[in-house]
């Protein structure tokens, strides 16, 4: 009996290493964070810090004191991203030598790993002024539409850009491109060599078009760029259930290949600069894909490095051209919109938070819906919101081209 009982006790002892620990803490230790900009020692407007716990899908908002100190408490452990926003007053702009009435301040940090039992060491965070961009994306339609026979149609996509400034703007140096979405939708992108996760210094575009040789856009003027500048919802050979007629689009992404069976429609064609693995239609994925507007001289574009995705990430079933991208420094990007499949696909972000701190999404493929910037009135003028945060700037438009 003793031996049997001893055996049972031994089993209990052996199993004791398979116990969960008893937690002593639930939240991350309290800490403080210091934000700073140029030589400012005091901020007239309080700086706001949004901590997003991506592991738990919880958000916390804290405010700074006037010296830029932010006291943080009660955070759940997890992987965090931090977004800072603030505003400089006219007096502060003046004291810094800027000719602005006001300016938005921004700052980001990602992949903050806050753990139980460890004091977070985030350090000081330098803020920057969000640049005022004259030409921006206004509306993007990529989700596709259903056909009257319940089929799917995605030749009707378009991108519209607008001159949001008060001055005329020549788009002759403007290029439009789509970033790589290797890994497919809903999947995190590869980390390119030399880049820091979540804070990329470059954009990696799979395709790049020069919009036109020269055209001056007056303030508020909009240009529509179509995949196919066709009367999609007017003729049966397209899709009568499409939400758009793009026959009056300003430009078309026509592929000049003799074997291209798609018609070259009347709209002026853009010039294909880079798309080694081209198809006959330039279309975004229906779940969305990051888009960029680049401003550069022809020589600068020629100098952009062509890079290949490291072999670790490559799928051997794709051609070699498929893995080629243009590596474009962020400084050439005038506007960027990170588009992901849905509100939870944050890991699929491709752009640095400096270019786009958020992401836009529709969440319904073949829904015939687009994303469009929020508008507001500035005196008599309709302007389009641009804070370099697509989550804040864009909404879903149920009827594309209606605004």
């Amino acid at each position, binding site marked *: 009996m003793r031996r049997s009982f001893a*055996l049972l006790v031994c089993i209990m002892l052996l199993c004791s290493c398979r116990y969960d620990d*008893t937690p002593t803490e639930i*939240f991350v230790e309290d800490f403080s964070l210091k934000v700073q900009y140029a030589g400012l020692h005091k901020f007239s407007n309080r700086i706001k810090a949004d901590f997003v716990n991506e592991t738990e899908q919880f958000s916390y908002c804290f405010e700074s004191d006037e010296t830029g100190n932010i006291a943080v408490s009660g955070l759940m452990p997890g992987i965090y991203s931090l977004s800072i926003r603030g505003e400089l007053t006219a007096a502060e702009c003046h004291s810094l030598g800027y000719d602005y009435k006001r300016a938005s301040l921004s700052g980001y940090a990602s992949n903050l790993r806050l753990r139980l039992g460890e004091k977070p060491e985030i350090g000081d965070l330098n803020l920057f002024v969000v640049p005022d961009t004259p030409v921006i994306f206004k509306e993007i339609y990529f989700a596709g539409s259903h056909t009257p026979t319940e089929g*799917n149609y995605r030749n009707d996509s378009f991108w519209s850009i607008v001159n949001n400034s008060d001055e005329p703007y020549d788009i002759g140096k403007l290029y439009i491109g789509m970033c790589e979405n290797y890994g497919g939708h*809903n999947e*995190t992108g590869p980390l390119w060599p030399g880049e820091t996760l979540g804070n990329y210094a470059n954009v990696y575009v799979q395709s790049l078009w020069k919009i036109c040789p020269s055209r001056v856009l007056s303030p508020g003027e909009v240009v529509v760029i179509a995949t196919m500048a066709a009367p999609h919802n007017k003729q049966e050979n397209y899709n009568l259930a499409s939400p758009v007629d793009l026959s009056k689009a300003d430009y078309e992404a026509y592929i000049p290949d003799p074997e291209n069976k798609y018609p070259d429609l009347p709209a002026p064609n853009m010039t294909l600069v880079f798309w080694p693995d081209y198809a006959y239609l330039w279309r975004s994925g229906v779940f969305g894909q990051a888009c960029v507007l680049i401003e550069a001289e022809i020589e600068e574009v020629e100098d952009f490095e062509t890079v290949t995705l490291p072999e670790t990430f490559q799928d051997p079933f794709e051609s070699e051209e498929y893995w080629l991208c243009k590596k474009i420094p962020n400084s050439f990007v005038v506007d960027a919109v990170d588009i992901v499949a*849905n509100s939870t696909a944050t890991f699929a972000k491709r752009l640095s938070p400096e270019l786009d701190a958020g992401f836009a999404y529709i969440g319904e493929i073949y829904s015939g819906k687009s994303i469009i910037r929020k508008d507001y009135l500035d005196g008599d003028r309709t302007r389009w919101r641009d804070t370099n945060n697509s989550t804040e700037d864009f909404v879903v438009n149920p009827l594309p081209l209606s605004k």
Partner: protein
Amino acid sequence: MKKIILCSFALILCSWGIFAQSLKKYEVDNFTEYTPWYHGGECAVNALHRPMEFASISLSSSYKDGKFYRPQEGRQYADVCFEAEGSQNVGKFSLSGSFNFCQSWNKGVMFASTLDPFDWNPYVIYDQTGGDWSRQSYSLWADIAYPIIKGKLSAGLGIDLKVGRGAKKVDPRPQANSNHIELRPSLAYAPLSWLKFGVAFIYALEKENSNLILYDSSVPQKLYLMKGLGQYTYEIFSNTERERKFEGDIFGGAFNVEGALSEIFRARVQLEYLNSVKSSRDIDFSKPHQRGKLFTDQLNCDVSFSGEFNGMMLLISEKVVSKSASGRELVQYFDPSPQVNSWITDSSLPGRYHRSLTSSTSRIAAVVPSKNSGTYVVDLSMIYSLDKQKYEATESFMNISRRVFSGAFEYIHDFPKAWIRGGVELGGAIPSKCENSVCLREEQDRTILEGLITPDFDYLSSKSISCTLKLSCGFSVGKTDLSIGAQGGILSCPSRKKNSARSQLFLGLTF
């Protein structure tokens, strides 16, 4: 699986010829139901006791419908089951075992993506749509015992195999497969003719795979990645597949001591300890993504007194179960660098979710023969349980304390070549102290709180009564007893004016 079914049929056909005696189904039922050591953990004891020899097969079908049910139970349930069970002494070996196959159809099941939504594992996936499930389960157990020293020392091996398959028929469609294999090598020792000890080592391996599939990926679905007690993160699911895998093992041991208090009465004390660890992981970006681990610890203590004299059987037992579980969440991030390209564990959050259950079951049962070829069966039981759950990080908890009473009274009448059995079973559940406070995870989405947590709490904290009528009869055909039976009952919650009805039909052969 086909091999298992074929082997089972072969076993049944062989045993048909071997058994010469004609046992009635109720005799087998009384033996399996009221003999504490039969399939009792340390099967080595069988070699010292030599169990009753029998073989039976049965086909049964049950049906349940009504409005008083838990969301994960489904509003309607129907099944068809086949079961074969037998026990035989072959030479010095004592063999007993059972094979069971069940096909079930379950309508209106909410918040389930695994075969058993009442499993304690908190790291499961729920969806918003719910739907109808179809499930198949195969289970097989076998106990083999062999006397090493006749009447003194014996060895045994218990094997338990359970396989389950199931799927929901609406997007997102979980297709679940589960496997459980358990081994219980045991030794039994009888130092004195009236005293026996048994000891067993327990090892089990469990695996389940739940693959959620979207047939129509143009309609995205919201998936809740649960963490326990209504806490979750979510994702909008528009991929074609979302796979979650569960893997775990159980280590444990059992010890029993059995003594004959007199020629009539036996006392038995059994202690069983089980320790399990179950991990849950997804396949994200084609790489394993660990979600959490559940550590479970269970201690069972069973004290029983049984007696058999002049055809009368008596069982008095007290079973106490103490089970506790702790859920550890894993914080992982995806490192997309060429050198790593996989999910990396950053930290773990131990003891995030806790659950404990203490229950005590008191039972007294008697099979009493009457003078006029009849037998009375009385079976009374009372279960007290205290089930506590907490998720401290969001100050959520749920405590359910309840007593469940049950009393079955049956009469069996024997005719020269037939028998008839009829009875009634009355029961009731009385909650004593129930409280809950569960944090709403998202202000704009109350699905889990209002669809699962609140209705489940209402069900468990409601008083209910039940009544079941049973009727069966059997005929001796040659060396075989053919039995047929039916039972029907109602479970009612008067305060909420909700009822559900249950019925069962069965057809059995015993030989």
